[in-house]
């Protein structure tokens, strides 16, 4: 176990370095000259060259990347091209809080709705309730945000008129419900499907029959014997669903006018604001890789039957 964790821990920073390099190269060879973007309408050749030198943009690309990583490790992610005088760290810092709240809300929704739906489907295994929950899960599991958003907006905002459609007011504001629901739908579907299959499998185990045979109350059988074992695979899925949360956030935040990192990524992309794009890619990749690392290791603690090699 120690060797496994150690190997993963060593590989993770290397992986992130490569991810950063790929982003850096894509930006470097992408269209547009960063100095021209910084200078905007002031295009005096002498000044352009001076700025290029000042920012270290005249050096070979690998040297630039090395300098960038060195600075990033000290918490300096550079200065935005578009928002003059603002550091990338401060620009991201402001928005990352908003995005994590939205992501958290979506994650909570997927767990709170997904697991009970899966339990219900398993309870009515083979009946119409099961079929409809599983078909629904299959429908929403792979539906991108831009497809579910218009239909849910029609339903909740235009027809029922019970939810606001736009804006952001934090985690405890009614305006979080729509985007969180839309963002969380694939997760709800995925977790419902996973928990249903997992519970059905556990229900056929001998120890469940034994628990029932010795006269335990059905609720106790579920709580102590079924759920404990059935939730283990579901737990890993939560780490995977983080990826969908991030990609969904780019569209959702733009759709609902939420000032998060998804929105920032999009603006930076259109403005060719390379420092922000690189920093965001690195950050998102780091979050994703670390989350999966934690889930992977946690998984092995929760379920000692798993072997690690």
């Amino acid at each position, binding site marked *: 176990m120690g060797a496994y964790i150690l190997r993963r821990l060593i590989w993770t920073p290397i*992986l992130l370095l490569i991810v950063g390099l790929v982003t850096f190269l894509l930006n470097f060879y992408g269209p547009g000259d960063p100095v021209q973007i910084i200078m905007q309408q002031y295009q005096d050749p002498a000044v352009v060259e001076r700025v290029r030198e000042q920012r270290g943009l005249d050096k070979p690309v690998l040297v630039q990347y090395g300098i960038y990583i060195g600075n990033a490790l000290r918490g300096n992610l550079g200065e935005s091209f578009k928002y003059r005088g603002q550091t990338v760290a401060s620009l991201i810092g402001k928005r990352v809080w908003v995005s994590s709240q939205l992501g958290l809300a979506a994650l909570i929704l997927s767990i709170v709705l997904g697991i009970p739906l899966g339990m219900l489907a398993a309870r009515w295994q083979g009946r119409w309730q099961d079929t409809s929950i599983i078909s629904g899960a299959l429908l929403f599991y792979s539906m991108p945000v831009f497809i579910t958003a218009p239909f849910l907006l029609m339903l909740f905002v235009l027809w029922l008129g019970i939810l606001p459609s736009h804006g952001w007011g934090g985690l405890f504001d009614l305006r979080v419900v729509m985007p969180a629901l839309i963002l969380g739908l694939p997760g709800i579907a995925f977790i419902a499907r996973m928990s249903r299959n997992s519970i059905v499998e556990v229900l056929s185990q001998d120890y469940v029959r034994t628990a029932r045979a010795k006269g335990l109350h059905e609720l106790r059988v579920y709580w102590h014997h079924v759920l404990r074992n059935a939730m283990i695979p579901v737990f890993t899925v939560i780490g995977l669903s983080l990826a969908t949360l991030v990609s969904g956030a*780019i569209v959702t935040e733009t759709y609902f006018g939420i000032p998060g990192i998804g929105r920032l990524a999009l603006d930076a992309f259109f403005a060719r604001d390379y420092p922000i794009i690189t920093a965001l890619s690195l950050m998102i990749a780091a979050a994703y890789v670390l989350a999966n690392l934690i889930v992977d290791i946690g998984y092995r603690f929760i379920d000692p039957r798993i072997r690690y090699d």
Partner: protein
Amino acid sequence: MRSFEEEKKKRPARGRSLWIYAGQRFMRNKKGMVCLAIILLLYGAGIFAPLVAPYGYDQQNLGQALKAPGWEHPFGTDRLGRDVFSRVIFGIRTTVIVTVAAMAAGGLVLGIAMGLISGYFGRFIDSVIMRVGEVFLAFPDILLVILIAATLKPRVTEWVRGLEGTVGIEGIVRSGFVDYMVVFGALAIVSWVGMARVVRGQVLSLKESQYVMAARALGASHWRIIFRHIFPNILPPIIVLVSVGMGSIAGSEVILSWLGLGVQPPVPSLGVMIWDNGDISILRTTPYLLLFPVGTVAIIIFAFNLLGDALNDALNPKIR
């Protein structure tokens, strides 16, 4: 006494009959057949769009602008009086081209090749391919598609312009061919990893099977073992993955169009139609402009997923 030849003739080929059983199981699956019919119908309409669509995709009629759906225009008309139904059909054509080409290049060619090499030869090359795959998986896929498409597009366009200049052919850039190439390229680069991982896992387990050992003992070449003995046996999961992957590529095309990286207007694509009308005010006034293209993409994605599910049931019966 019957000769061996006669005996051989009497017995049906075993490998083939497994596929026939799978086909029969699939035909019995109502859900799967309906999805297959829907996909064939939509893809057929897309491929033969000029014949099927009642109007041209850029045929304007300002006198008929913003008509609600009716007999003449089943999906209504947009601001320029263009028939939304025809535009959706031509949009499906773009989806057909993008999904088929990106899947062929990314999942089928890159993914299977990488998975086979990785799983069969193992060791160093396996580690390299799998580590590269992990790098691709660490990126949120949308972000990577965006980055690649944004970087590739100007370069490729520039290069093709230069080619046009030297060869003397005009209009390659204008025809939208370059846009398609960039979209395929970006989607292919992102979509191979999943396929490669599945193929690798399958190959790893098959490599130790007795019939592969037997083939090796008889002196079969690597090439022959891979394509005669391993490949036919890993086809079922590949078929399932292709079906599911087609749906997700159809979704990614919409995102690329949203960022202006996809197919450029006036060539219609469902993505362009969705983002041109992706506003709550449109939903209030003329919802059909948005809901028909969105619904079409939703049906395509859903049908491919259900089809994948049905194929999985038919091809891997033991998993049930």
